[in-house]
């Protein structure tokens, strides 16, 4: 699975609109994740998971911020995400299935906030993009 030039352009374009709202959008994506997929909460027993909590805003911003970082290094994701990859492999050890659940939650959030931009082509690009990022983050698991 590779990102075409068109995919990369779509990722960068939508990131431009997301970058100013990473806290709100990130918090919403996480809350959707926890509401729809209760098993994902097992990694956040130390968080206040109520809607709009400071924990969700802070962490949501961190997650989307990392995607933004990835968006500006689309030609070298393994290097750009190396530290995060180590973190997930040796420290966090989030079961790989959860990356797909978070990807879905992020996509629903993006579709709801940017309905005109989240065309089927944009969805395809972002699905591939987040999948590529997830692949790097789980690449050192074993």
């Amino acid at each position, binding site marked *: 699975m590779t990102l075409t030039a068109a995919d990369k352009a779509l990722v960068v374009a939508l990131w431009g609109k997301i970058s100013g709202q990473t806290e709100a959008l990130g918090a*919403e994506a996480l*809350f*959707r994740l926890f*509401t*729809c997929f209760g098993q994902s909460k097992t990694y956040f027993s130390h968080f206040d998971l109520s*809607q709009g909590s400071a924990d969700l805003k802070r962490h949501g911003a961190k997650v989307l911020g990392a995607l933004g970082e990835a968006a500006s290094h689309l030609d070298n994701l393994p290097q750009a995400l190396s530290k995060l990859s180590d973190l997930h492999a040796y420290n966090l050890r989030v079961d790989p299935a959860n990356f797909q659940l978070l990807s*879905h939650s992020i*996509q*629903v*959030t993006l*579709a*709801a*906030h940017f*309905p005109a931009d*989240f065309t*089927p*082509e944009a*969805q*395809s690009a972002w*699905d591939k993009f987040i999948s590529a990022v997830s692949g790097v983050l789980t690449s050192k698991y074993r």
Partner: protein
Amino acid sequence: MVHLSADECKDVSAVFSKVNVDQLGGESLASLLIVYPWTRRHFKTFGNLSSTDAILHNAKVQAHGAKVLGAVRDALKHVANLGGHFAHLSDLHCQQLFVDPANFKLFAGIVSIRVGQTMRQAYTPHVQASFEKFLDAVTDALAKGYH
């Protein structure tokens, strides 16, 4: 078996009342064929699926998507026995159409995203949870007859 509460059924019903099922179904099937191109293998008789534009304007895709989502909507009336309700369709998809049940989950995921795109903030996390639980129950029922 998945049980939907009365409140969850109400949420699902509300979603279907707020979207144009035919249009959403058509758009969702088109999106499936665009986002997951390998799914085109099941639609060789549908004519031109060679580009995003061709897919988006393909009348057979629109019609079939409408039919599929209409069947999903109608299943809400049979939520207490989805396995029985979908027994024939499950058999059809397994024995005659040879569709991997993984595709049902892919389609359901896309439907949820398109609902979010249509309903925007009205598709709250809570409503999304109810609706996706219903879609899960439908896809499970459709896969039940496989062997």
